[in-house]
Structure formats: C-alpha cells, structure tokens
C-alpha cells in the first residue's frame, strides 16, 4: 500500500502556494470563521471563484472550450490541491447545485451547444442553478412526480409545482425533472429539462426554513413555454440523467474538507473555554476525530477505486449518510462547549462565528434529510450495497 503522494506533485504544491500569494487580496477563508453581510459575502465568494477558475483550481478538468482549465483528470492532483487549500485554511470555491451537480451531468449527457452555452458562466459563479426535483407529493418517491410538459410545436408547455427548491430566487436557471410522457411508465415518462427562471409563468414563493433563512421556495409553473431543445439527454431519459445528478449531490453533501475545518473550529472553542483539558470533551472530540480521519482515508480508498476504474460498492454509498451525521455531531459538540452562549443565534451580540455553528447545526440536520433522507440512504446501502431484498410492496388497495 502506498498512501504517499509522489514527489512529482511537489511542484504542484509550490504552484498552489504561489497562487495564494498572488491572489491574497481575494482569498476567502474556509470554515466557520467566514461570514457577515450576505451580499458582501456573495461578492467575495464569486470573485474568489473567478480567480480559482482562471488559476485552474476550479473547473480544473473541464475542457478549455467550455471555460475550464482542461487538465487531464488526475484525482491525485485534485487531492494535493485540496490538501494545500485545507492546510492554508482557504476555501476551495463554490460548491452548489450548478457547479457540483449540473455541470458533471451536462458533460456526460449534454449536447455540444448546451455545453458551450452553460458550463462557462456556471463554473465562474455567474449563472446560479436550482434543482427542481421534489414536489409536494414526491420526495423520497421522486419518480411519482407530476409536474408535466406537453409538446406544442417545438416548445414544451409546463404546468405543475416544485417544492423545497433551495436558492430558487437567487437562481438564473433551473434543471428540473418533468413528466413529458403521461402514458409511459413511472420512471420512463420523465425528462430532464433546463429553464431560465425568468421565463413567463414561473412563480417563485419563498419558504422560511428553521434556520430563519428563506432559502427554501415553492416554484409554480403555469403554461411555461421552453424550447423542446432544452432537454438534457433524450426525452424520456430524465430518470437516468436525474439520478446521475443525484450521485454528485450525495458526493457534494458528503465532502469531508469542510468537515475538517469545522473540527479545527471546535478545537479553537475548546481551547478558548479551557475545555480542551476536560477528559469528557477530549473523549468526545477524539471520537469525532476518529470518524473524520476514517472518512478522510475512506475517500482515498474511493479515489483509488476511481483511478483503477473499480466499483466501490457499498463503500461509496455510505459517504452521504456518514458525513452529514458527522457534521451535525461536530456542531453539537461546539455548541455544548459554548454552554449558555450556545443558545445565541446570528445577529446577536456575543454570538460566536456569526452564528455559523447554530445555523450549520440545523443545516446539517436539513442535509441529513435533503438529497435523499438517512432512512432512504440506509435502504439503498442495504439493498444495493448488501444485496438485501427490498421491503415488500403493500397489497394494492
């Protein structure tokens, strides 16, 4: 076994460090210590994203003709870059539904013109996407979705409703699963359609979440017309395309580099409060460290599988389940260590780290639910990972 990354990557490390030095004015830090005025935060994040793309650290493996750096896929290089960013406490850039989920899907299923139009602005943070999957009656049972599109000439006419759509008001674009063939089977009649959010007939109504942000939305479609060419993949192939996107969602939600910066933030709090010397807190912290480190090296194993084009089996399916719970437990420890101060929220005097701990504690719970609930993840692990039989279907009523 070789866990060491060869010295051929030393020059890459040097490169990353000089990139930080050259872009010091725009660097966005990673972890709980970054926050404040929302529009200023957004401005800085987008600016940093552009620098990362220009430097070849975001969109690294995306072909140059689509606005990326066009590097050969090299997971080890990506790992080295991640490590350098982590060690420097620097943000790896925007992770969102467009960049992390839609772009890889488009690269796989999209037409050349779609790739040329949509990837560049997306990876530069100029085109923000939202994900129109869930409906009031269709969450875990996503394939039961009812929002429909009917072909009229060379346009689709869409009617229906999406819900829990994160960031729909800030988004320029949506990728959505829509039923285009009413008579085809449950999974067979769905298409993956992209649409600009300012298309007439789209009505976005904000929903407040438990964190106090209005990041959720309901999106209503009334006779919304989009060109039939806005389908990604083939019409009726939406389930396959859509679940491909979900794989990336689970990876995004399961990432461990944000996790490590939160553990570091926890250690800071324990030092400040003197609790770092308490055996109880040490034990809790080290249990978390054990889980974090295990998941970190687990990722290396998955990476090796990818390099060798091997299927990771159940090992790949556990990442979202584990890491979302881990992020929740890390915030819980930080809040306990703050004692009464732990009840304060964003905007309050004396709140630590802009209230990021409290917000992320709740947000992590949201992500235990979102992107496929923990219970659904466990079903998938049991059935696909371990080959256990499915739960029996109920007798038809």
């Amino acid at each position, binding site marked *: 076994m070789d866990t060491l990354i060869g010295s051929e990557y030393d020059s890459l490390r040097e490169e990353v460090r000089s990139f930080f030095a050259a872009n010091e004015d725009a660097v966005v830090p990673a972890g709980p210590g970054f926050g404040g005025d929302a529009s200023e935060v957004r401005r800085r994040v987008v600016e940093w994203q552009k620098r990362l793309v220009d430097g070849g650290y975001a969109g690294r493996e995306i072909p140059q003709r689509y606005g990326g750096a066009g590097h050969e896929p090299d997971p080890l290089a990506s790992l080295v870059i991640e490590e350098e960013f982590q060690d420097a406490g620097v943000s790896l850039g925007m992770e969102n539904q467009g960049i992390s989920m839609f772009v890889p899907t488009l690269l796989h299923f999209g037409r050349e013109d779609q790739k040329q139009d949509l990837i560049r602005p997306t990876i530069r943070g100029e085109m923000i996407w939202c994900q129109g999957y869930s409906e009031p009656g269709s*969450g875990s049972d996503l394939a039961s979705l009812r929002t429909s599109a009917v072909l009229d000439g060379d346009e689709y006419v869409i009617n229906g409703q999406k819900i829990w759509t994160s960031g729909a008001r800030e988004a320029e674009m949506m990728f959505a699963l829509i039923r285009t063939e009413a008579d085809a089977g449950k999974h067979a009649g769905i298409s993956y359609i992209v649409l600009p959010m300012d298309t007439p007939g789209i009505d976005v109504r904000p929903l407040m979440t*438990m964190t106090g942000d209005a990041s*959720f939305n309901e999106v209503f479609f009334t006779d919304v017309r989009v060109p039939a060419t806005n389908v990604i993949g083939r019409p009726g192939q939406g389930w396959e395309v859509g679940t491909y996107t979900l794989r990336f969602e689970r990876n995004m939600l399961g990432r461990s580099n944000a996790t490590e910066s939160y553990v570091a933030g926890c250690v800071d709090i324990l030092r400040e409060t003197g609790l770092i010397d308490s055996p*109880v807190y040490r034990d809790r912290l080290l249990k978390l460290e054990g889980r974090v480190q295990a998941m970190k090296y687990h990722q290396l194993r998955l990476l090796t599988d990818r390099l060798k084009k091997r299927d990771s089996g159940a090992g790949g399916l556990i990442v979202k389940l584990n890491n979302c719970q881990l992020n929740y437990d890390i915030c819980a420890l930080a809040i306990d260590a703050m004692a*009464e101060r732990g*009840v304060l929220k964003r905007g309050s*005097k004396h709140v630590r780290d802009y209230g990021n701990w409290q917000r992320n504690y709740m947000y992590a719970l949201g992500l235990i*639910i979102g992107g496929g609930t923990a*219970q659904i993840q466990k079903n998938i692990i049991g059935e696909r990972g371990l080959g256990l039989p499915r*739960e029996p279907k109920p007798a038809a009523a």
Partner: protein
Amino acid sequence: MDFGLTQPQELLRDSIARFLAQDVGIERVRRAMDSESGRDEAIHGQLGDQGITGLLIDMDLGGSELGMQEAAIAAQELGRAAAPVNFHSAYVLAPLLLAGADAGDRRSALLEGIAEGRSLITPILDAPIDDGRIDGAVLYVPDAPWSDAFLLESGGSLHLLDASIPGIDIEPLETVDDTRRVAEVTFSGIDLGAAESLGGSADSTRRAVHAARIALAADALGAAQKGLHISVEYAKERKQFERIIGSFQAVKHICAEVLAEVDPVQSLLWHTADAWDGESDEIDHLAPLLKAHATEVASTAVTMTTQVFGGMGFTHECDMHIFYKRAGYDRQMMGNPTALREQAAAVMYA
C-alpha cells in the same frame, strides 16, 4: 406503593393542558416568536389567574402551596405548548429564593405579586457584587427587558434591585429558541445600598437551583413528547410509494426508539420532584442527573422526530422546529449535560 401522579395532580395537569390549548395555542406562541422582543405581556397575568405562577407560594400569600411535583407538571405542559415564558426562572427560582429570604412585609408583598402574575422578578445567581457595589455584566439573563426587579444572589445572600434604578443597562440577545429570550444586563457600579437586602441562605439557594433545573428538565421532556406526538400523527397521514410512511420500519422504529428513550424520563422526573418535595439527600445528585439526562434524551428525540417530516421538518412553517429549539435552550441553560453529570458524580462518588 403507588408510583405516579395522584388524582389531584392529574386534574391539575389536565386543567393546565386545557388552559394552554385554549389560550396559548401555537399561533400565539408564533406571534411571540416572530416579534422583535419575544414578549407575551398578557401571559403572566393569565398564568396567575390559573394559579400556575403560585404553585410554590404559600396559601396565605395567594399561592397554592403545592410542591415540586406540581411545578414539574406545569413546566412539562408549558414545554409541550412551547409557551413563551421562562417558568423555571420567574415562577420556580424566584419564589423559592424568596421563600428562603427573611420573613417580612416586603417578602410577602413580592410573593403575592408573583402569585398573582403581577410581578416579574428575575433572579441573577452569583451576581457581580463586590465590596458593597454591584458592578459588571451578566449574560443570558432571562426576561431582563421586562423584569420589574432583579433578585441578586451572591453567596446565598439576596438583594432585590428595582429594574428602573439608574446604572442598569439591558441589551437583548437573540436566542435560537425564539419562545424564550435572554439579555445581557450590565450594572455600572451601583451602590449595594440601592438594593434591598433580604437575607437568604446558601441552603435555600441550593434547593431553589435544583428546582429550576427540574423545571427545565420537565420543559424539555414536554417538548420532546410533543415533537414525538406530532411526528407520529404525520407518519400516519403522509404517503410515499403509495404507502403510509409510518408503515415503513425505518419510520416506525424512529418513533418507537424515541418513545423508548423518552418515556422513562417521565418516571425519573416524578421521582426527582418527589425527592425534592421530601427534602431527600438524594436531590443533590438527582436534580443535576435528571437535567443532564432529560435534556440529552430530548436532543436526540427532536433530532430524530424532525426527520420523520422529511423536507417539511426543515421549514419554519412546520411546528417541529419550535420543539427542536425549545429542547436546545433547555439543554444549555443552567448547566448542560456534561457539566451537570460532573456535578452529580462529585456528589455520588464523593
């Protein structure tokens, strides 16, 4: 042996529950939550009319002279309703501290005011009193912006300071649990002579603190039980994959596991409240142990029952988050589980 509520206690519980359901419904709770100050001005008088503020106050002062078992019943119902009141502070800690103060007209008048729901007196434990001066900032003081007076405790001695005295600066803090608020109170070198000295003792302070912790534990228990209740109701209604979600073992087992954890806490609560009433020596470890355990169980319970709601559970519109945050406040205030377990262990294994 007869372990459980007596018939009068059951009647008390039912009447409090009925009053809260009728007069302090979730819309009213939400109005307080969504308001800037978080204040529900009328609730104190109403709780007074119901006898809830005077449970621990002598009959001749307008109270009902009951005990911790009854106060715990009230606290649990208030938690279940997420009522916008810091019961543990205003109606447990304050009257019990005053009960241990020197007898006299002043003390009687204060307790009468509390029993009627007319006066809101906010205790500050371990107040910054030094060298005859009250000087310093105190954080996380419940209800401070609308308290009539602060009951300062230091080394077991009590001093009552009118809230309108110059030199007191109050700055509200924002809490995750919007149903109950805290503030930072800064005293700028106020002469202790400006406060009334009321006597008091370390022993009565100790018992009062135990009682307040029992009340917070009961509140967390009520919140956890309500969270379980509404999630079970939801699990019986919501369908996915053409099935009622409660028919999935994954969902059923969440609910069953939460019940299995939560239900025994009820028994520990009753026993602890009984030990307090009986002035048992056990109370010195039972009260911290109960608060640690009840709030820990409540945290797990609300984390799990929120998931039963799926995406709905993450919204502000669904009531679940109200109980989720309620349990979080109960957990952190007046000692969190780790701190209190340490305290209990120091007593148990001394």
